[in-house]
């Protein structure tokens, strides 16, 4: 079988489907902008924004990048490996909190460097 010939035969998904995905993506973006001006702890904000971004990325990959219509073997080759690698990158992240704790906390005004001691 010629893969190129096969690809030219069909490109699944209708224009109507793609427009509805575009509307969903715009809607999720508007929710993100709305959330930016809602008072909430930064941790909640981060979780919600990342959740929305992952949904948007999944919609783009599945429909615009056509992955939903590809063979399962291709999806299983690409997606889990990428997710695992990105998760492994987070192994460094707890160190950022340690680093923040090490930072000098000025109480009143920044300390002044001591004058050099003169040799007698």
């Amino acid at each position: 079988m010629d893969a190129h010939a096969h690809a030219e035969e069909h490109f699944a998904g209708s224009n109507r489907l793609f427009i509805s995905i575009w509307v969903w993506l715009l809607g999720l973006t508007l929710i993100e902008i709305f959330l930016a001006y809602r008072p909430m702890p930064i941790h909640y904000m981060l979780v919600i924004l990342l959740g929305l971004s992952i949904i948007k990325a999944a919609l783009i990959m599945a429909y615009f990048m056509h992955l939903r219509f590809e063979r399962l073997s291709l999806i299983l080759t690409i997606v889990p490996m990428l997710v695992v690698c990105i998760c492994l990158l987070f192994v460094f992240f707890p160190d950022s909190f340690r680093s923040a704790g090490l930072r000098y906390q000025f109480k009143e005004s920044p300390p002044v460097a001591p004058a050099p001691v003169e040799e007698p």
Partner: protein
Amino acid sequence: MSTEAHVGTFPAVDWEGGTFPYRVGHRKLGMWLFIVSDSLTFSALLIGYSYLRASNVWPTPFPFYPSIVFSSVMTFCLLSSSLTMVFGVSASSKGDKAKARKWILLTIFFGVAFIVLHLIEWRHLIEEGLRPFFLPEHWVQVFTTTEGVPPSPLFGATFFTITGLHMFHVASGAVYLGVVAARVKKLRHEDVEISGLYWHFVDLVWMFVFPLIYIMSVDVGGHLAR
């Protein structure tokens, strides 16, 4: 027995794809692998940015206008460019190359609009005094904590690096699509589809850059405007 001979006698049903286990050509598979590697580049940059942000006092300087308005319109441009690119690929799959070319040119237009808006947004920040390793003086005054800890000057480094690298991807994508549009009648459908994959990837990356860089740094209280 040679390897080729062995493959020839291997039962296709075991792979369900015969000699094409992924049912895609080698070029498309190559683009997918490039996208995976580039995703890791952007992931590393965004996680590095988050690391710095969590371990420092971080300024939140973006006002509704111009920063959020501009970045929102830029998001609209990229999302719309992805839609027009899908239409282009769809037209190409039906053999309508002239229509595919029109959609691809519209995609390039949205991409160029994104770059122009982004450069204007950069100019606003640079004129305000933001540099890769320095913050504007009034930002330092406003965002220094009550304990006297100043905001990190690395804000500019992370902002210009991540958005700059993304802008470079958009610019190179626009050139790539320009070549595809010029040669669309000579190219196979799969080649058009591959260029679409790259363009959608650029859009996908922005879906993480926009909330993490812009939305998380909105000046909600209008501290800088006072």
